[in-house]
């Protein structure tokens, strides 16, 4: 009954095509027939047609059938298909959800498919994020981190030169000072904002990937493990069972207050989204990922721009993680699906993709070959991942954590009392984490 209703829901909500991998009749070249693997992925994301074509050329007896959905619908679609009897073979999903899907039995552990030395080749943050209860679920194709982009033409007349090395990174107080100086207009008549609004998520404030960092940077990973500074830095207990005291510690509240003040006291960033605010010269600074470099390089905004490491308060930190490929546990061709995932994430295909997209590779061996990553501005992102990078708090309940903390941060940006709102978020999270 449940399977029937789930299948009906899947069919009616998403009108999904049949997903099961199918094998054609035998041919001379392929005595076992041509196997079609089904892959679910978000639009405008890898695996790209170039990657798939390269793989199909190398694997003559296998074809890929892509099913693409908008990124915003990806998690809902995976939720529904996971419970159906006909899931895709491979899914491209958001990396922080690894533990959620692993705990629910949605993803297949890939340990037996991993060649020797592959885990050691992965960036530590990705390895942490893609591991659950000692098993690895995805190698990871790319990494991402955030940095502060600036309009050099606007800053030059003010005599402001942002640093280019992590060792000289601005503190948030220094960055705020520069944003205030650069902003034009005040009150209802701001024409150039100090900091562009977030374009992540649904383009409102609060997105955990970007805005939880304002809290975590007020913590300290070197403090005693039972101290509130340590808890603030990790934002969730290491066993992922406690939010109380971790997301609403005194230091986290201090960070939330600073975050709130950007919108409500200093008013250097707007509460509502402004599409392309940075590119349209409506903001001096913006916080964005490494892909943004390629965007600006390919579509000249008409001004000189630069990148500086993400500012910090007490301890520097950036969130790592990106979309990644996994094998569906209920898929019908696990061996072939695992081969596809590993081929897309390692070796020449992954190297070519990372180079073309200017994305940060997960594999250290690929990063070493990409000389462009060693020079400005991409070196800032790579060094951030290697030196400051941590995943968003890993948990089998990350999706719920993400939703509740994002809502809390959005409310704080809109003017809610930081302590009251963080306490409320911790209270909502606790029963979910205990399940």
């Amino acid at each position: 009954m449940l399977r029937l209703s789930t299948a009906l829901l899947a069919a009616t909500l998403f009108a999904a095509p049949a997903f099961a991998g199918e094998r054609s009749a035998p041919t001379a070249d392929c005595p076992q027939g041509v196997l079609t693997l089904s892959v679910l992925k978000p639009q405008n994301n890898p695996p790209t047609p170039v990657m798939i074509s390269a793989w199909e050329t190398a694997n003559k007896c296998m074809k890929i059938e892509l099913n693409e959905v908008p990124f915003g619908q990806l998690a809902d679609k995976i939720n529904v298909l996971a419970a159906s009897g006909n899931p895709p073979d491979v899914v491209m999903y958001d990396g922080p959800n690894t533990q959620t899907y692993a705990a629910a039995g949605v993803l297949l552990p890939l340990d037996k498919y991993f060649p020797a030395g592959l885990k050691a080749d992965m960036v530590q943050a990705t390895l942490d994020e893609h591991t659950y209860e000692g098993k690895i679920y995805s190698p990871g194709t790319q990494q991402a981190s955030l940095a502060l982009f600036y309009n050099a033409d606007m800053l030059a007349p003010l005599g402001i030169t942002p640093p280019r090395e992590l060792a000289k990174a601005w503190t948030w107080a220094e960055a705020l000072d520069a944003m205030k100086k650069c902003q034009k207009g005040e009150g209802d008549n701001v024409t150039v904002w100090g900091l562009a609004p977030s374009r992540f998520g649904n383009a409102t404030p609060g997105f955990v990937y970007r805005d939880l960092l304002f809290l975590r940077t007020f913590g300290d990973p070197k403090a005693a493990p039972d101290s509130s500074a340590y808890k603030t830095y990790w934002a969730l207990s290491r066993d992922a069972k406690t939010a109380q005291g971790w997301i609403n510690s005194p230091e986290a509240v201090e960070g939330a207050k600073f975050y709130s003040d950007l919108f409500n006291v200093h008013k250097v960033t707007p509460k509502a989204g402004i599409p392309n605010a940075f590119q349209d010269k409506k903001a001096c600074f913006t916080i964005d990922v490494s892909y943004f470099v390629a965007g600006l390089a390919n579509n000249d905004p008409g001004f000189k721009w630069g990148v500086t490491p993400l500012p910090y308060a007490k301890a520097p930190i950036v969130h790592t993680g990106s979309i990644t490929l996994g094998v569906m546990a209920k898929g019908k061709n696990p061996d072939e699906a695992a081969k596809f995932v590993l081929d897309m994430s390692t070796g020449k295909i992954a190297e070519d993709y990372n180079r073309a997209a200017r994305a940060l590779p997960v594999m250290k061996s690929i990063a070493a070959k990409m000389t462009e990553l060693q020079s400005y501005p991409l070196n800032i992102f790579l060094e951030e991942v290697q030196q400051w990078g941590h995943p968003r708090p890993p948990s089998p309940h990350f999706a719920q954590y993400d939703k509740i903390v994002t809502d809390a941060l959005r409310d704080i940006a809109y003017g809610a009392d930081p302590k009251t709102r963080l306490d409320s978020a911790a209270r909502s999270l606790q029963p979910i984490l205990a399940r």
Partner: protein
Amino acid sequence: MIAAKRRAILHWAAVTTFVGPFLLMLLMFQYVPVVRMVWDSLWDFALLNPDKRTFVGLGNYLDAFDDPDRRQAFAVTFGFAFGVVCLVIPISFFIAIYLNGRLPARAVVRTVVFLPVVTSSVVIATMWVFLLDPTNGLINGAIAMMGFKKLAFLTSKAQALPSIIGMMVWQQTGFATVLFLSGLQGIPRDLEDAARVDGCGWWQRLRHVVMPLLGRTTVFVVVIMTVFSLQAFAPALIMTGGGPEGTTDFIAFDIYQLAFALQQPGLASAISTLFMLVVMGVSLLQMRLMRSEWSY
């Protein structure tokens, strides 16, 4: 005798042919899911792994009553419905009175008033996000031109719900107006003429003849507007995400978030069941309280 039997068989064959498929669909897509929802409300499970479930009996219902966020969602939804109904009914009633008369530009006003009704809720919500933008929105532009301070609208705890009520009133007034207009056109002309002969003025005719005779229409409009308002989903999804601080967290949106984002379909089913019972109760109460004493 045999002919009568054949007629009866043919009659039922026709009834089954015409009504059967629709009854079957109604059963499959309406009543079976309702039964399923009530059943699911007794279990704790996640959508990702629905086979792994624990029977919790009425635990989800107790959680729904205990949780301040759920109580807030109920309060917000009914406050929203109350605001919409209180504004839509008088506005649409007077527009209907206007459209029922022989006044200039009646056809244009009728089209303008009805246009939002045939526009998708998603399109309307998206359009109002731009209209209500605190920095560059058209409404704030007009407010600034008049020399007033711009308003935060959707990012303000105090202004978000009234803003969405305003949008909903704008959207639903046309539908309510058409219903009132049809009610007005059904009132026998003789009754108003008789009142006029007896010396009643415009207001007296409206108060003592038109309003009582529109009782049934008013009940219908109130119930329909209440149900429409209680079903509100798109404004929360597109305009506010339920914020700021839950002030626009409508029940339908809350249920969706609980089931899909928070992976608590059991709790979402319990709230859906409660909500269904409450909406049925409110509709019955409205129909009883506003029962018309007049007929024509």
